[in-house]
């Protein structure tokens, strides 16, 4: 019985004040706002403290592009050597020398060797350096000339030089104190022909630059430069040195052939359809207007597969979007003047005696007061771009206009903010993750250009405009913000295309 009474009393208390609502004085909220350590986002922040993943992506892109740059040069070297000779069994690819020309014994047909100076934005300018060659120092006593041409990337040449030096040292040709080194410093194109078979000249691209090949460290350094123009350098190498090249295969100086095997130049004049991967970072800023309602900036990262020919381009892929909203929200409230007792009911007992019941009622002034609250919202989307456009190649540079829809799927929504509820004028805060996937559609329009760093790797830059086709925030779809952004990235070609 006693327990039942206690239960009733507890229930009475719960019903009476279990959901009791009251308003604190407005000064409390002001104090709270002052004491909360809000972090003010830096101007033009790429997401405040949430840029770690972007940094990882950017770092990966930089490291990857460096790797791909080197890889594309190396693969280009090997491919060109093979193509120019038409005889893969020459063994040249396996020798440390990637650019060696051997003149026939009876001849100094250096005239057969022509160099085309490369220019990036115009047709190649052909320059014959034959005239300058005979003026060079006399041929070696054997009557043979062996020309070591520049080729390859500086570091590659250096490494190969080291290999050569090792081989030559084993045979006592290069002393232990000597090093055979090479450095390069200019782009040019070289034609080569087989003097015996009169095969058609074959062209390969010499990338980078030829500066000097010399033996250093020895007691008597041997100058090897025998011909040069303002852009080209040719070098002589003794028969002994060539014969000492490890694993020469059929590449023998005794054969009366002219091998002009140089390579490693990027071919920027591909004309055929190409497939490439494009990794991009795409920071966006909200255009003027609506800045107090939506995210001032967004960060996009994507990897897309791209097809293009001389005129058209298609692009599709997948990526992430991180949207950050840092707002100051004005919260309006009325100043509390005081509390008065308000009569709410009168009850009568069995004798008819009334009981007056009062509740304290807050009285506010009529003037609206304002305080500023901070909000922080982070939304993560999965983005699926489908872009198409036109492109025009100009030498190393490709100009393009890309447009198309981008689908966004909201993955996460975290919000920390103050809010004034309509009935209580009380500030509350909430944070949540969406239970349902919310989709949004954007339309992308970008004006880009791409600069070929190598024959496979390019740098992409595209100022872009992004218009919202629907609003993920508003049920009434009234607000569809427009963003301005810059899409930058690295492209890597997957196929070779057709060279001119």
């Amino acid at each position, binding site marked *: 019985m006693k327990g039942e009474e206690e239960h009733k009393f507890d229930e009475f208390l719960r019903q009476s004040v279990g959901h*009791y609502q009251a308003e*604190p004085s407005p000064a409390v909220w002001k104090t709270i706002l002052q004491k909360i350590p809000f972090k003010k986002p830096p101007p033009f922040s790429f997401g405040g403290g949430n840029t770690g993943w972007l940094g990882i992506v950017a770092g990966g892109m930089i490291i990857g592009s460096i790797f791909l740059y080197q890889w594309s040069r190396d693969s280009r070297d090997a491919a060109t050597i093979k193509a120019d000779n038409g005889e893969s069994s020459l063994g040249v690819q396996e020798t440390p020398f990637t650019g060696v020309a051997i003149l026939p014994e009876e001849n100094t047909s250096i005239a057969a060797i022509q160099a085309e100076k490369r220019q990036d934005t115009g047709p190649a300018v052909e320059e014959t350096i034959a005239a300058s060659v005979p003026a060079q120092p006399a041929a070696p006593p054997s009557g043979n000339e062996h020309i070591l041409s520049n080729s390859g990337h500086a570091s590659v040449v250096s490494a190969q030089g080291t290999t050569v030096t090792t081989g030559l040292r084993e045979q006592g040709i290069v002393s232990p104190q000597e090093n055979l080194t090479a450095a390069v410093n200019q782009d040019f194109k070289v034609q080569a022909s087989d003097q015996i078979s009169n095969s058609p000249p074959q062209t390969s691209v010499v990338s980078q630059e030829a500066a000097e090949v010399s033996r250093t460290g020895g007691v008597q350094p041997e100058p090897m430069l025998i011909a040069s123009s303002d852009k080209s350098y040719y070098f002589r190498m003794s028969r002994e040195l060539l014969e000492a090249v490890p694993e020469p295969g059929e590449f023998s100086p005794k054969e009366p052939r002219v091998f002009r095997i140089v390579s490693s130049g990027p071919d920027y004049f591909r004309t055929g359809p190409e497939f490439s991967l494009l990794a991009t970072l795409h920071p966006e800023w909200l255009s003027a207007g609506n800045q107090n309602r939506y995210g001032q900036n967004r960060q996009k990262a994507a990897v897309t597969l791209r097809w293009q020919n001389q005129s058209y381009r298609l692009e599709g892929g997948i990526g992430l979007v991180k949207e950050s909203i840092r707002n100051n929200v004005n919260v309006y409230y009325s100043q509390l003047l005081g509390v008065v007792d308000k009569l709410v009911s009168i009850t009568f007992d069995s004798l008819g005696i009334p009981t007056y019941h009062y*509740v304290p009622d807050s009285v506010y002034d009529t003037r609206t007061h304002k305080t500023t609250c901070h909000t922080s919202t982070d939304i993560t989307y999965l983005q699926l771009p489908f872009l198409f456009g036109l492109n025009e190649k100009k030498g190393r540079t490709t100009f393009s206009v890309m447009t198309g829809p981008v689908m966004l799927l909201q993955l996460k929504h975290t919000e920390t903010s103050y809010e004034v509820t309509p009935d209580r004028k009380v500030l509350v805060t909430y944070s949540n*993750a969406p239970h349902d996937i919310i989709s949004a559609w954007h339309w992308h329009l970008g004006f880009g250009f791409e600069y070929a760093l190598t024959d496979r790797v390019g740098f992409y830059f595209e100022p872009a405009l992004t218009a919202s086709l629907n609003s993920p925030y508003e049920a009434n779809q009234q607000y569809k913000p427009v963003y301005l952004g810059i899409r930058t990235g690295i492209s890597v070609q997957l196929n070779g295309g057709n060279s001119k």
Partner: protein
Amino acid sequence: MFGVCLRYSRNREEAEDLLQEGFIKVFQHIANYKGTGSFEGWIRRIMVNTAINHFHATVKQQWVHVEDIEKVGISQEEEQYSPQGEEAYAVSPETVMQLIQKMPDGYRMVLNLYVFEGYQHKEIANMLGVSENTSKSQLSKGRKYLKQLINKLLDKEYKILEQL
């Protein structure tokens, strides 16, 4: 949340202090809220914890013995308040809140945790650092004390009306 703070405090000023301290904790630890469960419940729990900490930190004489009741002028012989029928409406929520605030700190704390938050005596004992029996006795005495306050208030109102 201010209503919760009022129930755990002696007066409005103390409740505002609790609210302020609690909300600062909410914002400082907002990252710890994982989105599972009611956000209001999470805030309420922070408020209650803040009240318990405040209770430990500021209240020196926490536990009231039977004889203390005499000091506030209420005899144990007064009838226990047993709300039934129309009489239940005779005490407004504001009045009940004021009477709860008048309760000794220990009574009020245990009553709040047991009646409104739904904790068991074992949990309350752990939270407040007392024995389970102390929690039970404080609840029993708290109920009795509150009933007596209500009865006394109703008696006063009745006498005033009689004079009218």
